[in-house]
């Protein structure tokens, strides 16, 4: 370090013009910084020296000799400051010196405030037409009117323009190809350079603007979208026209032609709204509606504002206000979606996808049936065995792909809720955090849109009626900040979305009173807690005039229930008064694949979703107990858990009745663990869930069926359902 400082101080630079010397200094400063790290009095000096050096390099200094002096002083002071760092000098010394430094700016020793100065990349990235036209941008360049040079230029420029077109088309399919962007950038850059020399103002301006645009793309600040491609190709066409004019000896006017003018204007307007990032800019629904003539500009703005403040989608707000019909909105939405999907995808009717998935499912089954045919299995041909493995691999992949085509993570829907909760809590004066789990859970893409509204309703409900005001929460000993927790999980053939809050919970008595008042039930009706809670889903429970922030719990819950039921789903509530409420939204996956454990119970095979299993084990006789009033229990590593005999629910005659002979599977439901008893595990397999049809939809303990490799059907066990059956029977 000392040597670096010495070298810097002893003057490696001959003068402000000595760029090589400055370069060496900059490198030494980098080395020095590398050694001392980001702290200490030296850092400020290094930063300052860099800044002054940069000014000298770029010839932007207003007083080069003053800057030169300052740099020398700075480098000299490095030695002193170095001494300070090692505790040999006075720290005030540097400060005094810096204050006395010529042309002193305030930002000395303050790296933070120099950040803007240091933003070396920002230079000319913004397009400024005004300055382009009014500023004497280039030093007086003597006319280089050499006819031969001009002809060469025209030929070369034309040649380069044709490569631009070729590369642009390549970018259309692969917008991130940096090499292609460079290959387009370079000709514009070169054409601009030459045009500057031979005073072709229009060509110079035009290629300059396109170059700037492409420079943004090069540095990743602008995504190559269709409109960027259009602009570049448009610019190329105009350039070609200008070159042809030149060829005919018509070019070289001093004024800018209207065509060029309007193009430059277009580029300017475009860059005014550059889409930073890599996504294609998506038109807003409001914009599309305005375009369709459904809305006026101002009306659209009003609705957007209103929608934002209420955390609602533009379309919803517009329909509510009566500004647009649902049909018009859905048309706009479709157009928007089309624009999004257009990027690099093909739109496919979801029914076709459904068919594909079904057919692939059939294919897998048919394949298994062929391969497991006893006659086929007797063939000992190695080639057949190899080929069938290959076939299985292909069909498995095919199945995976066709499944995934319809599935999207629920994440994006969940993330919209963050904004909603934030806005709602701000408006209501409540402090709420939103936590989420299972965002990566995949869900049918149609379902994603369908669950959005119910989700919004329920969250809104939790904010409005569940979470208390901070003061109230503090009074009852809760954290003043309330929590809403949303969680998605695939359970068997269902997607379960839980919305929990730690608010005041449901008041069963109030609900009952209100239901009686509304005439939904009559006073003598005896309802258990669950049935009472379910009353809030009754259409008559909340009346229209109460749909405000101060209404009782139950706002629009009938709507939620209806939309969930439309999806053939189920809504459940559990709540503890004073502690919070939990809404379970159970939605079917019309088709989903699950990782299942195939188990044997008596003569039949069943499938338990692997996700539901904690472990499977065999126990010794000593671990089995029968406790008066609690039924059969087993002890798994110090914890007692109820034994659930699966065969008794499915009316099977099991091979083993004794728990120490049979296989046990530990599952968890809520806070409790249970042990399921089965005969044995046959294997683990991914299975396609098939609905059992309307007739068996409500079968307790069964969530669906699957066709196994040999063509036989196995039922998929709904663990949660079995546990609640068990709990009911022991109550």
């Amino acid at each position: 370090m000392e040597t670096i400082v010495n070298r810097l101080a002893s003057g490696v630079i001959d003068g402000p013009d000595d760029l090589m010397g400055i370069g060496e200094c900059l490198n030494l400063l980098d080395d020095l910084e590398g050694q001392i790290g980001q702290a200490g009095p030296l850092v400020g000096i290094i930063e300052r020296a860099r800044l002054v050096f940069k000014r000298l390099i770029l010839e932007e200094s207003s007083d080069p000799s003053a800057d030169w002096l300052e740099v020398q002083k700075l480098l000299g002071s490095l030695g002193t400051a170095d001494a300070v760092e090692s505790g040999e000098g006075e720290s005030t010394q540097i400060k005094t010196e810096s204050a006395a430094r010529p042309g002193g700016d305030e930002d000395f020793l303050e790296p933070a405030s120099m950040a803007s100065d240091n933003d070396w990349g920002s230079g000319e990235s913004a397009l400024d037409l005004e300055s382009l036209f009014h500023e004497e941008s280039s030093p007086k360049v003597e006319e280089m009117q050499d006819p031969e040079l001009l002809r060469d230029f025209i030929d070369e420029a034309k040649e380069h323009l044709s490569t631009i077109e070729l590369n642009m088309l390549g970018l259309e399919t692969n917008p991130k190809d940096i090499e292609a962007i460079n290959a387009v950038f370079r000709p514009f850059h070169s054409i601009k350079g030459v045009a500057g020399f031979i005073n072709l103002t229009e060509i110079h301006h035009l290629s300059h603007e396109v170059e700037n645009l492409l420079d943004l793309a090069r540095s990743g600040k602008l995504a190559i979208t269709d409109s960027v491609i259009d602009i570049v190709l448009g610019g190329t066409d105009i350039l070609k026209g200008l070159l042809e004019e030149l060829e005919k000896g018509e070019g070289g006017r001093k004024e800018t032609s209207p065509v060029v003018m309007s193009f430059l204007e277009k580029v300017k307007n475009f860059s005014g709204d550059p889409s930073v990032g890599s996504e294609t800019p998506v038109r807003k629904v409001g914009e599309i509606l305005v375009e369709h003539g459904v809305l006026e500009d101002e009306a659209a703005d009003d609705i957007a504002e209103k929608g934002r403040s209420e955390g609602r989608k533009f379309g919803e707000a517009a329909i509510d206000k009566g500004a647009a019909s649902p049909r018009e909105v859905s048309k706009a939405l479709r157009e928007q979606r089309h624009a999004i999907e257009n990027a690099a995808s093909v739109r496919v009717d979801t029914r076709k996808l459904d068919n594909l998935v079904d057919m692939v499912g059939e294919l897998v089954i048919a394949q298994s049936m062929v391969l497991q045919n006893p006659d086929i299995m007797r063939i000992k041909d190695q080639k057949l065995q190899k080929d069938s493995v290959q076939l299985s691999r292909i069909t498995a992949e095919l199945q995976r792909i066709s499944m995934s085509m319809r599935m999207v993570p629920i994440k994006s829907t969940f993330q919209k809720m963050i904004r909603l909760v934030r806005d709602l809590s701000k408006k209501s004066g409540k402090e709420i955090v939103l936590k989420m789990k299972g965002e990566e859970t995949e869900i049918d893409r149609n379902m994603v849109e369908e669950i959005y509204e119910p989700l919004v309703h329920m969250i809104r409900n939790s904010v409005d009626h569940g979470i208390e005001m901070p003061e109230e929460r503090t009074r009852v000993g809760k954290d003043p900040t309330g929590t809403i927790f949303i969680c998605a999980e695939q359970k068997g053939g269902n997607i379960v979305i839980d919305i929990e809050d730690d608010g005041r919970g449901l008041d069963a008595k109030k609900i009952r009173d209100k239901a009686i008042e509304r005439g939904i039930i009559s006073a003598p009706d005896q309802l258990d807690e669950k049935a009472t809670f379910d009353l809030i889903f009754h259409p008559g429970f909340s009346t229209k005039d109460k749909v405000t922030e101060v209404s009782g719990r139950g706002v629009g819950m009938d709507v939620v229930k209806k939309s969930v039921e439309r999806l053939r789903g189920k809504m459940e509530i559990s709540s503890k008064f004073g502690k919070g409420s939990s809404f379970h939204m159970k939605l079917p996956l019309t088709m989903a694949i699950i990782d299942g454990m195939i188990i044997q119970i008596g003569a039949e095979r069943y499938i338990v979703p692997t996700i539901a299993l904690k472990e499977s084990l065999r126990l010794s006789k000593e671990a089995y107990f029968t406790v008066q009033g609690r039924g059969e229990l087993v002890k798994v590593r110090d914890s007692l858990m109820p034994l659930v005999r699966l065969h008794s629910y499915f009316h099977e005659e099991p091979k083993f009745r004794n728990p120490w002979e049979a296989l046990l599977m530990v599952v968890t439901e809520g806070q409790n663990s249970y042990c399921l008893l089965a005969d044995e595990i046959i294997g683990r397999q991914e299975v396609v869930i098939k609905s059992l049809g309307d007739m068996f939809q409500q079968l307790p303990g069964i969530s669906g069926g699957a066709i196994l490799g040999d063509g036989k059907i196995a039922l998929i066990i709904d663990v949660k359902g079995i546990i609640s059956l068990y709990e009911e029977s022991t109550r």
Partner: protein
Amino acid sequence: MAYKDLTVLIVDDFLTMRRIVRKILRDLNFEDIIEAEDGSAALDVLKRTRVDLIVSDWNMPRMTGLELLKEVRSTDSIKDIPFLMVTAESQKENIVEAVKARVSNYIVKPFTAAILEEKLAKILAR
């Protein structure tokens, strides 16, 4: 040493630009001018011929001017050849990079013979 005794290497992928630079150099009485259309062609020339000055464009396909500069500075036999980088106003900010890579000086397009002469004086004075 008079300009006419110096060998200059112009590096630019754009033919017209090479012509323009050549013309300006001629105006300054340079006589021995070699052209190369990209960095690797330039390195070939430098291997074969003694060159007294390199005037290179920054923005070139395959090998950029900066890459060429780094290559020159790290090759013992040619590391001391004065290197003048030609750049555009809009790319000027990048020049700090070139300075760190020990460029002798730089010149912004478009330039005149007078400006080039001024820069050459600064370079060749050392």
